């Protein structure tokens, strides 16, 4: 029997956290949920996630970025998905495809909120392949 792949989800909106967990559990992943940067930091010390999904704007505007950076520092091979509502709220565009953004955002994928289940599945499958 193969062990389930672990996915870390960090999101401060409890309901949105539940959704992501439910979608991924239904697909057979083991889910580690954390509700903020601090909880996320504790979680990555006890378990090595195979994938991390982080909300960009939590209690502090930079907490998603900071956590992303820490994960990439500890586990360079763990892919990271950043969830963001920034683009539609501020008009600031930093897609991970643009060169300047890629140099300072360490995430593998940026997804715009609200997240559709099918879209999440595609990205997760692609990154875990």
């Amino acid at each position, binding site marked *: 029997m193969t062990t389930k792949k672990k996915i870390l989800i960090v999101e*401060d*909106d*409890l*309901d*949105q956290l*539940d*959704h992501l967990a*439910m*979608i991924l559990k*239904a697909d057979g992943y083991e889910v580690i949920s954390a*509700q*903020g940067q601090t909880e996320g930091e504790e979680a990555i010390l006890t378990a090595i996630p195979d994938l991390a999904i982080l909300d960009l*704007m939590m*209690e502090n505007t930079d907490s998603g970025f900071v956590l992303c950076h820490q994960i990439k520092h500890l586990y360079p091979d763990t892919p990271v998905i950043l969830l963001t*509502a920034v683009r539609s*709220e*501020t008009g600031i565009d930093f897609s991970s495809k643009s060169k300047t953004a890629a140099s300072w955002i360490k995430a593998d994928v940026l997804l715009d*909120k*609200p*997240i*559709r*289940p099918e879209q999440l599945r595609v990205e997760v499958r692609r990154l875990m392949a």
Partner: protein
Amino acid sequence: MNETLHLLVVDDEVGMRLSVERALRHYSVHLPDIQNDIDFRVSQAESGEAALALIDADTPDLILLDYKLPGMSGLDVLTALQERKLDLLVVMITAYASLETAVQATKIGAFDFLAKPFTPEELRATVQKITKHCMIQREASKLAEERRQIRFEFLSVLAHELKSPLAAVQGNLFILRDHLAGDTIQDYDHLVNRSIIRLEGMKKLIFDLLDLTRIESGQKKRVLTDIDVCGAAHQSIETHRALAAEKRVTITFEGPETLLMKADAGELEMIFNNLISNAVKYNKNGGAVTVAIQELGPTLSIAVRDTGIGMTQAEVSKLFAEFTRIKNKKTMNILGSGLGLSILKRVSYLYGGQVQVASEPDQGTTFTVTLQKEPLPSTAGSEPTTTVV
């Protein structure tokens, strides 16, 4: 603090340029309003063409511009400046100021006139006048910019706060659509309940926002009548009985039978509702809320104590900012718009009031609001104050 303004004098007579430089060399303008002494750095140009080249390289704050120049005239320079949209003021120097030229020059951006010949005193008086104007204008645009910034921040946070519940409800619907939570309808009860709670929260935010907007804009019609504060307190306590019963929280009242003050009934209700609903929401199961009213000479105090989860000093200091909700494990299931205390502070301010907070983690919080019994009808006075105890 000293500030230096760059003044450019444009005149074809070298004597005129030198006399301006001499007159301003040790001259400074004192502006008590912005607590600044302003002195001047003078540069010179002998023609309109030279002036424009200099302006493009090192933009001055003030320009003394001769009307009659060889080549480009003063008016030509003014027209060229207008296209550049620079933050500077121009004074025209002219020997024969006809009304017609004055009107024409003013139309295309000259701020003032100085008639030739002038004494150093006349020059300094004019420079003082335009310096004052220049600094006031800059101060005003700085303030306007700050206001725009605050407004932008308010709106982006508001957008975020409105979108979060929508994203949550939409997510719940996705789960329902894809039958991800189970095969029986009961498996979806939790999702449906959470959706209802999130939509309630969103509705509350919109209502609070409307309250806040009405108070801010002064559009809300205030009717000040003699109102029994204790009666208003009892009424609000009754409104919150059901919510309190869910958590087995008791609410008790301490105070006189009646106590009259001049107030708007709706505003007084906002004060009590905000205080009491917070004390219930942030309480522990089986906790207690005490509403205490006291007369203190020309003022009265409303103190609402709870035996709830309390806050740390750091949390208290963030409390009154718009959309602040203290987010931790203890508060995650508590519904709030993050605007309640902003409303409380602004309404109290209308009554020359103050809001004080004393809190101890896991022990409870006391909010004390002090109000004038006979408030001034206008909102004149100091800014609303909050004190952290």
